[in-house]
């Protein structure tokens, strides 16, 4: 692995290599485009087939352009599983967790990052470990406890559990941000006679809004995509979230190729929508180390 394997200088501004450079440039771009297309291909195949009739699929296969745009598969699927209901369930859960999770993270991080309460290192280690735990190691007692509290098969249990799980990550991240919070701002608030609560909501929260936005976005998308706990906790059809509803239907006798594509399309669309809306926040967040 030494210099011998090195490709000819791609970036040198030597004019004599221009033709080779431009060819190399197109080859590299083409390879990247093909790779990227391969990554996106499964989604494209879904879009292509979601609008076909089963007969069209049977005779022309998965890669043909639909003979006519048919919304029948999507409409059938939507009505059969009451998809509006699943969308609402997912929306309510993800939104509640995002709001409550950010709030809990802020409270924790205010005490740990700005307040530097005693034992903060140990709290941070705890939140770090909590963030690492596989959900399998919590699930059975949570299942048992929620049954005892009549919270089983209720979105409330899922909202509470994910609020805490996500805020473990949020606390860890936000504490390191608040660690470096400009002291002058806190001092100024204190001079103005603001108490701790007013400082928190009048100074700290507004100033750290960009970071909170990132956290909110991540919590929302993570919760929307969560599968393991919702699968176990939300057993009745009325309470299922989108991923659970789709996974449970899988293998159903009515789910042929076009119905599967239609269901996958409606399952993917909200996520793609968030992705497009939050794209900037997401990339900024990933850069800030907001990762899981």
């Amino acid at each position, binding site marked *: 692995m030494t210099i011998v394997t*090195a490709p000819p200088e791609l970036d040198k501004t030597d004019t004599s290599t221009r033709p080779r450079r431009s060819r190399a440039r197109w080859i590299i771009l083409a390879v*990247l485009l093909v790779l990227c297309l391969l990554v996106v291909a499964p989604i494209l195949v879904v879009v292509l087939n979601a609008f076909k009739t089963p007969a069209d699929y049977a005779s022309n296969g998965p890669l043909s352009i639909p003979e006519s745009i048919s919304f029948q598969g999507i409409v059938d699927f939507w009505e059969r599983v009451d998809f509006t209901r699943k969308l609402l369930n997912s929306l309510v859960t993800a939104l509640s967790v995002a709001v409550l999770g950010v709030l809990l993270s802020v409270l924790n991080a205010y005490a740990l990052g700005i307040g530097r309460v005693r034992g903060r290192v140990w709290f941070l280690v705890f939140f770090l470990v909590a963030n690492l735990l596989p959900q399998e190691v919590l699930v059975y007692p949570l299942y048992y406890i929620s049954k005892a509290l009549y919270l089983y098969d209720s979105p409330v249990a899922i909202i509470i559990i994910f609020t805490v799980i996500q805020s473990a990550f949020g606390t860890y991240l936000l504490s390191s941000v608040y660690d470096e919070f400009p002291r002058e701002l806190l001092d100024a608030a204190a001079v103005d006679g603001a108490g701790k609560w007013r400082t928190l909501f009048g100074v700290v929260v507004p100033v750290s809004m960009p970071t909170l936005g990132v956290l909110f976005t991540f919590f929302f998308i993570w919760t929307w995509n969560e599968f393991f706990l919702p699968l176990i906790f939300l057993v009745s059809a009325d309470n299922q979230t989108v991923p659970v509803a789709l996974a449970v239907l899988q293998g159903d006798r009515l789910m042929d190729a076009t119905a*599967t594509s239609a269901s996958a399309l409606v399952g993917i669309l909200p996520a793609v929508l968030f992705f497009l809306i939050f794209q900037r926040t997401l990339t900024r967040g990933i850069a800030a180390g907001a990762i899981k």
Partner: protein
Amino acid sequence: MSQKRQGGYAPFLIPGIVASLAVIVVPLVMTVGISFTKWNGVTDPQWIGFDNYTRLFGDANFWGSFGHILLLIVAMAVIPTLLGLVLAAVLFDYVAKVVGDRWARILRSGFYLPQVLPVAVTGIVWVWILHPSYGALNRILDSIGLGSLGRDWLGDPDWALLSVMFVMIWFQLGYPVVMFMAGLQRIDPELYEAADLDGASWWQRFRAITVKLIRPELYVVLVTTTIAALKIFGQVYVLTKGGPSNATLVPSYFAWQNYFQKAQVGYGSAISTVLTVIIVILAFVFLRLQNRESAK
């Protein structure tokens, strides 16, 4: 003034402490406790000491599930990191500079797309694409005259794990690309210019500057993807249900089976406890390595 600020923040921590106790600490302690019992989830648990653990170490499925995880770490951590490193470097300092920033951003989004879709839904898509009779992949192979290569990708015990690994590479690739591209933004362009003046080749620059300076991101990506591989559940549930004949069994699915299908809650708890211990140890080893690295 700063003295006064020291006290009085503890109340803000109370909701967090209460919630963490209820949702994390108590269930964690309970699971560890249950792992020393025989319990079907209904009648009273029965204390059996370390029996679950001795059974675990003699259980071929347990070892099998961890063996599969090693391969999934290759598919989810090692391959995406290596590929992602090259892709990020090419996108950042070739495509962005020579072709345009726009293209680099578009390609990056393309690679990242699978990461934002619900795993259960992309799993369904892959099940359909890889389906033996009506799946897109076999249809494509047929139409280009390679029909003999077609097979039951997820149903053949020899191929199921490979197919799952392939899907996981697809799923995971975008994460290192985005992380590394973010890290590359930190690098002082003058370093590259200096390397160019010295006549360094692209590859030399890649090794001496790029890889060295994004070490922090490399560590983060390797830790998080390795841990994600250890925790994998959703994809396996949707793609193969651990089958065929346990060819794709993974620890979390194995634990789930014992909890909710076999009513062996004690045994499932033991599996989860072992998995948790491995993850926590691994994370701390990585952290130590990283600290030692950054202390240099």
